[in-house]
């Protein structure tokens, strides 16, 4: 005569039994994954020696807080131009003719060097200018500058 019942006597496992069971499970898992675990220990060791582990630990603990702080901070208006510029700078780098720029930079450096050698009190009159046009180096600079001006205007 089996009457309907709903009461359940739960299996009670003592703390010690549970620990024993869990350890057994972990030991099996360790045995099954020996190689990975040994490598893992090496990785942990390396991270620890480099101090990375401490930082990672600290960051993980404060993950949500840290993200919140960063986001709150860089959301402020004062960063807006910076943020907007960041990708612009990236694109700028992509667009620039770096090879040409390097050449121009070299020339610019030469010019600065030459400029620095010139005494502060040296003067140039109109005649000197006309004469200077004949100097091939000056003529080359002026031609380049004129070409640059033309290009920039396009």
């Amino acid at each position, binding site marked *: 005569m089996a009457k309907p019942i709903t009461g359940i006597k*739960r299996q009670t496992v003592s703390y010690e039994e549970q620990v024993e069971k869990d350890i057994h499970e972990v030991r099996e898992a360790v045995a099954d994954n020996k190689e990975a675990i040994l490598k893992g220990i090496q990785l942990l060791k390396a991270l620890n020696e480099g101090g990375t582990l401490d930082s990672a630990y600290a960051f993980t603990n404060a993950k949500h807080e840290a993200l919140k702080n960063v986001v709150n901070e860089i959301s402020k208006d004062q960063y807006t131009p910076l943020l907007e510029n960041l990708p612009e700078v990236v*694109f700028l780098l992509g667009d620039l003719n770096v090879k040409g720029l390097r050449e121009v930079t070299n020339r610019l450096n030469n010019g600065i060097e030459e400029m620095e050698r010139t005494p502060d009190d040296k003067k140039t009159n109109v005649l000197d200018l006309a004469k200077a046009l004949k100097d091939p180096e000056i003529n080359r600079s002026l031609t380049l500058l004129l070409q640059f001006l033309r290009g920039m205007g396009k």
Partner: protein
Amino acid sequence: MLERDHTVVTINGNEYLAEPGQNLLEFIQSIDESIPAICYNESLGPIETCDTCIIQLNGEMTRACGKKVEAGMRVQTKLPHVHKAQKEALDRILEKHELYCTVCDYNNGSCEIHNTMAEFGLEHQSRPFQPTSYNRDDSGSFYRYDPDQCILCGRCVEVCQDVQVNETLTIDWERQEPRVIWDNDVPIDQSSCVNCGQCSTVCPCNAMMEVGMEGEAGFLTDQEPGLLKKMIGLTKKVETGYGPLFAVSDTEASMRESRIKKTKTVCTYCGVGCSFDVWTKDRKVLKVEPHAESPANGISTCVKGKFGWDYVNSEERLTKPLIRRGDQFEEVEWDEAIAFAAKRMTEIKEEKGADHLGFISSSKATNEESYLMQKLARQIIGTNNIDNCSRYCQTPATKGLFRTVGHGGDSGSIDDIAKAGLVMTIGSNTAESHPVLASRIKRSQKLFGQQLYVFDLRKHEMAKRADRFYQPKSGTDLVWLSAVTKYILDQGWQDKKFLKEWVNGYDEYVQSLEPFTLEYASDLTGIPVDELKDIAKNVAEAKGVAVCWAMGVTQHMRGSDTSTAISNLLLITGNYGKPGTGAYPLRGHNNVQGCSDFGSMPNFFPGYEKVTDDEVRKRYEDAWQATLPAEEGMDNHQMIEAIHNGELSGMYVIGEDTGIVDANINYVTAAFEKLDLFIVQDLFLTKTAEYADLVLPASPSLEKDGTFTNTERRIQRLYKALEPMKGTKPDWEILQLIAKDLGTDWGYTHPSEIMEESAGLAPLFAGVNYERLEGYKSLQWPVAADGTDEPLLFLDGFPFEDKKAKLFPLEFELMYDTNEEYDLHVNNGRLLEHFHEGNMTYKSEGIRRKTPNAFIEISKELAEERGVEEGGEVKLISEAGEATGVVTITDRVRGKEIFLPLNDNGKSAVNFLTDNRVDKDTNTPAYKEIAVKMKVMKKKGKSPIPPNNHRRGNPVPQISVKVQEKWKREDYQFPGSQVRR
């Protein structure tokens, strides 16, 4: 001849062969000339709202998705002005949709806006994003709507109006800021929305999204709202160019793949057999995603399949075997439980004989598990006392089909139902019991001129939609069916050619129809003579007739005969073996079909081969190395009777709450109390399990591999999405452990091996194996050894010796009626949102909050007569027992008919009322024949249907999204005419 079949189209100067009538956009995409397209979806067809697929066709700018391939078309997709028009359309979308992909839960590699923009190479947002003035709608339990991310593509409206055909969603194009609205602009939760979830499935972005995904899918999306908003702001600030944004978000999307598991599974609810990917993160179910290639359902789902999975992680799951000791259960280890089962079964077998044990398989478990249960019964115990719950529902239909056409299953596919010129549903509340299949009929009727005739007591959704709706008196369908058939014959409208070629028993059958005159039928059924004539004419003339029927036919004392009458009518009119025709008994549970197919029947081995057939038995005896019993066993019903008579002492039930779902449960539970051994295997401590001596905790479908067979005879694989919950085991593993303890080691390591064994033994499944069923592939039995299956049966005749079907003569006598004392007729059936006794669906909080309990539907007339109002409480008393419940007053029932959903296991359970009446041929309980008297306990009270139940909503039917109204807006200009050449 090639020119006739194919059409030459010139695209960007190259000539291609295309199928005439093919969608032009699909064709362009098929030849790898990529053009952007967002609102277009193959499963939905052209909606023409997004304007992104603009091309130049014969010199004119137009939307590719709106055109069909014609001969000589000249198409340009890349000219500068075409490109410019496409870009304009994309820019307009980005005005409505903010790209913050990395912190968006929809960034899973399949966001169609993201992918389209990336593929088009759009680098900059040309115009600023403009949020709407609307708030997000978070009112629903299952999905939410964000107007600020919605691009108004209208896919959700299309799917709601024309695929699901629930007709809740529209876009109001007339207001200043158009948006998607529910009914007449009410919150999601207050609307007629049935939560089929298809809008969230087809949404190309995160506008309409499953709640389960929110804050779960992404690595960075689980933040408090304020912070998330700031993060969105940040992503926006750095989005000067989309390239880097896409690079970062694509990386994050692929990182998600290692965390979110997507597993193909098959729905565990009704017999339609929807398949989909279930997305899980650890044990959490994030969402269910159906696919266009899901063979039975495509992109469709209902609320149960899309959102009803909470039961899998329910805290009420059993996680330890339980043994009855004294007046309580005690948790024990598996070893002890299995040893107990084996020892007690052996004792009973030795003391009283093998036939003192009975086995009941689960129609919710897999084919492989059904196979193993009958193997355990037959091979190891040595009895044919094995059955399954299809005895409660569809065995009469199977019987009717075996008598006439030889295969006990749907004669075609759901596609054939959708294709039929005339669909008749008889005793089927299709929209609630088989929602996805019903949607196919609703769509065909709404868009393609299919005729729908509904025969039912109750004015349910399909009845309201029907072209013709008849309410024949309960249990008299056989009569009008036979009278209509007779009238067709009298008029000479039968399919003479078909009958001559394919059908036997004509003369005898025609004679048997003598009594079924129109007058007699009209008298008994209440359908007027003229109407009957009209039905006959339309059935005879229709281009393909498909008849769907369910419990309203089978759960009567003449359930098998009525099913036979349906088949007779189809034979007379030649409606077998052609596309768009046939008989469709709609199977109730996910695996009602498969559970019987794979041998859990007292008279059949797998594949419907008789246990009494010596040759067949020999085959199994050789394979199983055992002597098998040669006599038919007991079915469910006989088992219960046998317990009362002291002829059955032990019973093993898997996944079936017999004590709730069998008829006359007072009688059934009294039997349980008499058992010497009662083993119940289930997810929960069900009402039935409360009587058990041993309860074994099983794993549900998501936690195992296997196959299910749907109503179309379609065998589909399910893959393990989750590990079995700790302490539980899949049924096949449990069965194998018991067999081993009883001395036979089956040695299966995977369900595929069980299928292999079964396919090798049962000719019906000869070619079935797991490789042929991989992923979304499926097979519809019979499957030949080379893997050829039969989506449409009877193309080469019927499975009888001379390949001819048989007309089966019938008689009728009315055996049931209400009387003076028991003056009300109780009808019962399913609710859309609950399944069966509710053990699974009531675990879903979202479903519970909208439909917390069953209710009793009574008519206005009856309510007035008995002085009861909405929310009142009544007691229904039948000869077998009584049930009480809360009343709702509705026009779905009329006069003295009452409806009680079967989805309740409390005091409203309908089976307190049912008695021992059965179908005379199959012993299926006549659940639908209950006469009761009603006592009013409380005059009125709180309505049992909450204000947020979809039944209170007000749908707004229309066809598609009405894009013409968008085009008419003053602020709209076609991007193709906006760009200068």
